[in-house]
């Protein structure tokens, strides 16, 4: 069975939205085939704009449209849209404009292109910007529902999408709720908190742990900002141990955000799994995530270390 990547699901959702929402504009910077905004472009050419490979102008043009009361989705690679960080900070976020950034090919999902096209820093640099929401769907269903919801929520957001397809987690009835962490599985011994591609790894890890008599709770944090503090603190209280995993640097991402909350409100032993302060490289995706230690067995290892420590 073939699954859709989150970027493909997002492209489909935009095309669906365009049918009824005549004030939605989509902008891209010469990557519309890759980001999948091409579908919208073909269907609604009047509301699509290709700005050429010019990300700063992409963001500025989107700002102008948003000031004129349009809802604007802008597409690029995660790595390249962040070239316009200052424009995103000073214009889009400062003025709280209705611009939704579709950051495709995030993490190392653009595996063969190597370090220049992979992006492990974006959650960190986006979540420090006031007004900016940071989102990362885990599968195609969540991606679609997230896009449909974001079209009607006021304010800017950064939406992290993938090049590769991951296994579906949710069925069609899944209801996306902005700002709420989703408990995928209950558990009492350790909480595994994941985002994006790593949610499936967390599920795999919980199955391995279960065989060893360890009952892991799993949370999917699709909204990295604003963070669902209540659910996270409750999970820490339930289990007393937290492992986080993300396809992002260990610095400043999901793990950092969770640590900030728990350190102040309910400190528990914690392990942060992510990329260890290094750049990516070319290769096959599965090879790279294993090489960089982003998989179920790393989660299992970290959970066991925490279980060996005192609560």
């Amino acid at each position, binding site marked *: 069975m073939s699954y859709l990547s989150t970027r493909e699901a997002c492209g489909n959702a935009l095309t669906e939205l365009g049918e009824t929402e005549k004030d939605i*504009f989509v902008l891209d910077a010469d990557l519309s085939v890759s980001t999948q905004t091409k579908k919208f472009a073909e269907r609604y050419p009047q509301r699509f704009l290709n700005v050429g490979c010019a990300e700063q102008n992409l963001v500025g043009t989107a*700002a102008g449209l*948003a000031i*004129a009361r349009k809802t604007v989705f802008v597409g690029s690679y995660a790595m390249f849209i962040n070239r316009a960080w200052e424009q995103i900070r000073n*214009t889009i976020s400062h003025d709280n404009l209705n611009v939704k950034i579709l950051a495709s090919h995030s993490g190392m999902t653009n595996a063969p292109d190597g370090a220049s096209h992979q992006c492990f820093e974006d959650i960190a640099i986006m979540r420090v910007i006031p007004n900016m929401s940071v989102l990362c769907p885990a599968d195609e269903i969540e991606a679609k529902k997230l896009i449909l919801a974001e079209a009607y929520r006021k304010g800017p957001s950064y939406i992290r999408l993938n090049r590769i397809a991951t296994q579906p987690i949710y069925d069609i009835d899944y209801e996306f709720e902005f700002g709420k962490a989703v408990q995928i599985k209950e558990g009492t011994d350790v909480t595994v908190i994941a985002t994006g591609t790593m949610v499936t790894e967390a599920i795999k890890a919980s199955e391995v742990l279960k065989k060893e008599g360890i009952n892991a709770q799993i949370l999917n944090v699709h909204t990295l900002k604003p963070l669902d503090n209540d659910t996270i603190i409750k999970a820490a209280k339930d289990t007393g141990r937290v492992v986080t995993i993300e396809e992002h640097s260990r610095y400043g991402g999901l793990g950092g955000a969770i640590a900030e909350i728990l350190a102040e409100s309910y400190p528990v032993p914690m392990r942060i799994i992510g990329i260890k302060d290094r750049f990516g490289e070319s290769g096959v995706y599965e090879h790279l995530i294993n090489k960089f230690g982003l998989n179920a067995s790393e989660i299992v290892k970290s959970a066991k270390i925490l279980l060996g420590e005192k609560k």
Partner: protein
Amino acid sequence: MTEITSEDLKKLEDKANLIRRHVIKILNSAGSGHTGGSLSCTDLLVALYFHVMNHSPDVKLENQDRFILSKGHAAPALYSTLAECGYFSINELESLRKNNGFLQGHPDCKIPGVEVSGGSLGQGLSIANGLSIAAKYDNKNSKIYVLLGDGECDEGQIWEAAMLSAHYKLDNIIAIVDRNGLQIDGQTEKVMCLEPFARKWESFGWNIIEIDGNDMSQIINAFKEAKCLTGKPTVIIAYTFKGKGVSFMEWVNSFHGKAPNETEMNMALEELK
């Protein structure tokens, strides 16, 4: 925009003088800010807000024109103009750069009449592009005015945006460059050569109008001509004097980012009587 009489022209020149007086006073009171670049573009702002643009401080008009101050450091001139138009009280001008003040050091979208926050250079023309596309999509007959600094045109984003405006034939955009020839570190031609500046814009696919940007009659005629041009965006390259109106500030680069002290203020106000 109606025909201008010599009497109207005199009124606009008097208004510009009044706004220059505000600029000097509020910058002195603030103790910091950008004097030279505020004074160089005052005549352009006065022409736009008191003669050229279709706008109202009280209601949103059907075909409301838009103005973006891309050279955000000229905020004192913009604020003084907006206050004189009635967007907010003249008394509010005193709050510039003050603690908990209403008027931020650079334009802020919370201030009535300010479309978008600014201060970081290079972004206004891109924003104008978005406003232009939206106006065309909504079948609005409004113009988008954007005021750029010449030093600001060192920014690559300006040229990304200039390409887009021409590519999509955004002929409702009228950009104005305040070509005062100076930027923070010195003369524009020494810091980073801009010339042949008009030909650069022309080669990017723009209509070009070149004027003395401190001559009210030339400014009014330039806008009149620009409004009639179709098929391409238009840029008015307005050759101005940095520090215009105050003899000891004109073409003096130290007044780029400096406010007048008490003595300088009094001398300046004497000249602007």
